[in-house]
């Protein structure tokens, strides 16, 4: 089994966890702020498991070394998760689309032949089941909400839809056949969008290059600069 598959799972959780933690103290309501911080912490916890296993299997010295001492071109996360927050609509739509994929991917990995992979998937799936429930309800509430919230959610969907395709482009490094997850993903997403009175763009155009590392968007480097600055300035820093 390729360690790249483990790094992809870990990097998705790490990059989205960092993006979500950028909301801390800025979310539109106290309750949402706490919820986003909780979800961010769930994802950082999952990162430690995936990158920890990758490190054990030769990808690097430790999960921390992989998180803080790789450069943007070494990251293997989906382009979707590195997209900036912009506003609450974009952040919630990004979360919903990722959760819908993440749920299906983890569900498939719970029966992975490698016992450590299936154990991480089983633990993570409990958390992600809640993430998906919450972001689904939020998309419906804001889509089928006020004129302003609906316009913003439709705009966010249009902006992020070109990043959906990459989640289902699969290769031998993936831990499971990601293309096979598409029908279940589509069913959940289209049901939700219908309840939210939102319409997915007709185009299937997909930006690519995140999970292969070939072409990350400009945003990843800026995010890593903030995330990595402390451990790079003080390499042996400890709490």
């Amino acid at each position: 089994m390729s360690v790249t598959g483990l790094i992809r799972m870990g990097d998705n959780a790490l990059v989205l966890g960092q993006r979500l933690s950028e909301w801390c103290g800025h979310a539109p309501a106290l309750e949402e702020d706490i919820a986003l911080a909780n979800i961010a912490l769930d994802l950082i916890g999952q990162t430690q498991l995936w990158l920890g296993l990758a490190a054990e299997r030769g990808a690097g010295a430790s999960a921390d070394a992989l998180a803080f001492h790789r450069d943007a071109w070494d990251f293997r996360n989906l382009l979707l998760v590195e997209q900036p927050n912009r506003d609450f609509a974009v952040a919630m739509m990004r979360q919903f689309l990722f959760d819908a994929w993440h749920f299906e991917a983890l569900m498939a990995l719970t029966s992975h032949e490698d016992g450590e992979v299936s154990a991480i998937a089983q633990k993570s799936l409990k958390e992600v089941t809640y993430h998906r429930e919450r972001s689904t309800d939020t998309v419906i509430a804001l889509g089928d909400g006020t004129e302003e919230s609906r316009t913003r959610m439709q705009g966010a969907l249009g902006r992020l839809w070109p990043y959906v395709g990459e989640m289902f482009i699969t290769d031998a490094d993936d831990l499971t056949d990601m293309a096979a997850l598409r029908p279940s993903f589509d069913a959940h997403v289209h049901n939700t969008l219908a309840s939210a009175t939102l319409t997915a763009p007709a185009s299937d155009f997909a930006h690519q290059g995140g999970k292969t590392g070939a072409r990350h968007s400009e945003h990843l480097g800026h995010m890593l600069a903030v995330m990595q600055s402390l451990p790079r300035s003080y390499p042996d820093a400890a709490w």
Partner: protein
Amino acid sequence: MSNEWPLYEVFIRGQHGLSHRHVGSLHATDAAHAIQNARDVYTRRKEGVSIWVVPAAEIMASSPDDKDALYDPADDKVYRHPSFFDIPDDAGAM
């Protein structure tokens, strides 16, 4: 007119056998949202196994102005306490 979401009171049951206890309040758009928010705000450290939420506006509370009439009459009715009965030794701990 306030733009705040409605207020909900949150009750958490800590473990089996204990009753739900009031733990605080939060804002949410509806009851289902209030359950999710309560999960995130009040059960982060394994505080509970069950959540109730109640719209704060639906709670009828006694008025502080009525406290003389409501509570003072119990002051001199010590016989309402079950402390005047001899409990036989073989009844064990009550």
